């Protein structure tokens, strides 16, 4: 289990992570959401032992991660680049990682390579972007670590390959209780693969819940009222977004469907439609609530 308590990471005076508290249980598919510069990559680098935290603690099964070989052997980190593997062939890359990760499975490696038909003897810099990604994910899965950290790992994959890679990950999760932490701007991927997600913003955790509870706790409301209500009139609700067009009022509000219906009933809506949001919409409206939106561009 990954336990982060009051985690702080600073780059000069800038706090990339500012008191992060997170628990990731084993076997979880954990999504990391956040705007650019929110601290997602820094968090993954601390979890993989690349960075040392400046404050708080980062532990896996009660052990510190940084400079701890025993813990690092259980974690594999795939970052958002593949240039570092350019000079290797896939076979060389396998040999390289096999030496470091004692549980490395030749069988899994061969099976996955056969599945996606990657050449073993060609240098990786001759691969397409998607092939490079596949190669690294195959290596990551073959290392059979307990934790797989993926930073924008689906970039450059075509839809078919996305499905294949996702299936590889899901199989690994099912087979050996693999914990996957995915940082991605592609919320669809997180929506499909993760059961839990955390939203980071300016180095802090905005929320961390299982996806169902996230989705069930925020709704889009389309309603028509006899009176033209303003945003202030909905102060009993946590409204993230308010918009009125002619007689229709659009609201994005936090809360369960029944709870919201109950609160709106007092205002006697002529028409009321409550729709659950997609993860992408939740992300956008949550970020808007935090003052991170595109209104400035519209103006």
């Amino acid at each position: 289990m990954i336990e982060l308590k009051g985690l702080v990471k600073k780059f000069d005076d800038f706090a990339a992570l500012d008191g992060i508290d997170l628990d990731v249980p084993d076997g979880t598919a954990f999504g990391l959401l956040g705007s650019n510069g929110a601290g997602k990559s820094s968090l993954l680098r601390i979890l993989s032992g690349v960075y040392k935290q400046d404050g708080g603690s980062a532990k896996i099964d009660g052990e510190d991660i940084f400079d701890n070989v025993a813990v690092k052997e259980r974690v594999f980190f795939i970052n958002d680049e593949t240039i570092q593997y350019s000079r290797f062939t896939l076979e060389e890359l396998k040999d390289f990682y096999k030496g470091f990760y004692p549980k490395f499975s030749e069988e899994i490696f061969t099976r996955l390579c056969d599945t996606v038909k990657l050449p073993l003897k060609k240098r990786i810099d001759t691969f397409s972007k998607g092939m490079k990604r596949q190669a690294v994910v195959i290596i990551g899965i073959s290392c059979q670590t307990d934790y797989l950290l993926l930073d924008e790992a689906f970039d450059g994959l075509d839809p078919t390959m996305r499905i294949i890679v996702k299936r590889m990950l899901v199989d690994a999760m099912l087979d050996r209780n693999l914990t996957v932490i995915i940082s991605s701007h592609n919320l669809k991927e997180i929506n499909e693969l993760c059961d839990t997600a955390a939203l980071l913003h300016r180095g802090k955790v905005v929320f961390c819940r299982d996806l169902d509870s996230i989705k069930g706790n925020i709704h889009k409301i389309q309603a028509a009222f006899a009176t033209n209500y303003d945003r202030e009139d909905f102060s009993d609700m946590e409204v993230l977004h308010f918009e009125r067009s002619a007689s229709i009022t659009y609201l994005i509000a936090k809360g369960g469907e029944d709870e919201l219906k109950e609160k709106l009933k007092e205002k006697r809506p002529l028409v009321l439609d409550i729709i659950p949001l997609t993860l992408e919409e939740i992300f956008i409206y949550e970020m808007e609530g935090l003052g991170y939106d595109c209104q400035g561009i519209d103006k």
Partner: protein
Amino acid sequence: MTAKALTSNFFTNFKYKVKSSIRFMIVLLVLHICAAPLNLFNVIIFLSKSQKHSGANYNELYLVIGVISTAIAVGAGLVIALNVFNYLYKKSLVDMTFSLPLTTRQRFFSDFLAGAFIYLAPYLISCVISLILNAIGSALFAKWQYYSMDITSNLLTLIVSGFFIMLMLYVLSVLAITCCGSIFEAVSYAGLVQILIPSTIAVFGYIFMGNLYGIDLSPKIMPVIKATSPIGAVIGLISNVNGTINFYLDPYWLVPFVILTLVYFVAAYVLYMKRKAEQVSKPFVYKLFYYIILTSITFCIGTIFTLESFESNLVPLIIITAIVYLLFEVITNRGFKKFYMSAIRYAATIGAVVGITLLFKNTDGFGAVTKIPSAQSVASVETDYGGIFGIFDNDTMQTYSDPKTIEAIIKAHSSVIQRYEKEKNTDGSIAYDAYSNLSNIKIKYNLKNGSSFSRTYTFNLEDALFLKSIDRTPEFKEKCLQTLKSSYEAYKKISDEKEFIYLNNILNTNSTQINSKYADELFEAIAEDIAQIPESEYFAPSKDLIGYLNIASIRIPLNENFSNTLLLFKKYNIKIPVLDINVDLFENKDFSLALPEDFKISADGKNYWYSTTNYYFYPDGTLMAYLSNTPEAMELIRHAQPSFLTDEPCYSLYIYGERYIIPPKYSSIAEKVYNDAKQ
């Protein structure tokens, strides 16, 4: 996690790094084989051919190839360090490298050792090949030499010193790379640091401190240069060439060199452990390193620029250092960001350099220039003083520990410093001009507290008279003997002649060659005579000059006081050439007589009492008279003394432009000859 797993990851990393550099290692091996092994092979071929026919020659092209390939292979240490520690300046490699299951310490040591292995293994293999070829050569040929160089001893010297020089170059490169975070800085500063260490020490020792009157740090600076950097060590190794090519491994060099390599290694390790993964892509992870380099550059330029005159070169100094400094700042800061800070830093640096220079100048190196030890604090003094007449001038240092001798040297030293202080206050340049045309005397004080310091001065007669008592000490006899031997040996190496001890008459018009087999016996006899001659006869001989003994570059005026030497000549039937003065010499005006002057000494025909240069002195021509071939003139020539010390004014005789003293007791004859000649 077991210890086995820890070592396994360590070796996995090591193996990977070595394996990925196999091709590079092969190239290095080829380069190393082109050096010593190829040349040893060449010597074997040459010696085999020369046994068959005498016209065989060395193919010197192999030597050129060897030098070039060695330079490339040794310089590869920098490239290997850059390659092995590439993740310290390539951001794309950070995640891959730092996330591997290795501790920071493991990663450092496995990478460091892998680099060292890649770098040194080909060298060591080539050394083994060289030793095998050397063994074959030694077994096959009785005279196993390259020209006159002994191959075996030089090869062993080169193998050992080469190993440590390469190791330091690699360690120093790792240290520099650890301080940098981007490729440009890593490459340029890893190279720059190799050059700047010896340069800065040399500039400090030879130029900065050399500007201080009398202070000569060269004996101390060269060992420091040799011990602190690979380039310095190579210079040291080559500068030990004696006559032909000989490499000398000084164990006193090796110890500090290895210790310093260890210091650089520890520094690299500590800095590596402290640096963070996220610091990659910063130009400098440790800015102090950058400022040390930049200050060294400013210091070197500043010191070289102000070598001639500080005041007149101050403006160009500021302009040039500002350009260099700010250029470095713009490159490091990737633009003109906070340029005012760069300007402030430059002002502080140049201010410090100029300030320290002025401070050193105005305080005479914090009193070092005027420092004179008390006689009680000195255990012994070493000096190359070659006698009051300068006959035994050479670099041989002689140690004197008699308190009276120490006191005499301190008095002479005080006399120099008093004059320096007096002249410095009137006009700074006089202090130096006053000693022109005179050679230097080195003095090294060994103090009772275990420390030592050296000074080098050009003494004038006044100062030197304090030293004349040294000539009568037993240590001076030893100095004479050693000087004769070392001059003779040095001359033997560079001269094509077979014999080079000559006995000349007083006009050098006729000479006898002395067989070199008598050399040792002759040197002993001369030294014995120097020690035995009574004091009055040594400084003001009453016996006429009978000839000169020329040994290498030393010319000893002989008279009957040299009893042991003359006995030796008799024993081996060596004849002193006859003085043959013909009329032509007088017609050519080769003899001239000058009026008595208020001088005290004449030293072998030289203007000043002490000089190794052939400086001929001519007094005012109107006061000189050319001698005619008269009995009185002939008598004066016979009594003329090249080395004579007196307080009385006396005539001096010029023979071929060289000055001889007419001892005061012959002044009446000299006066007559002079007056007759003037009429």
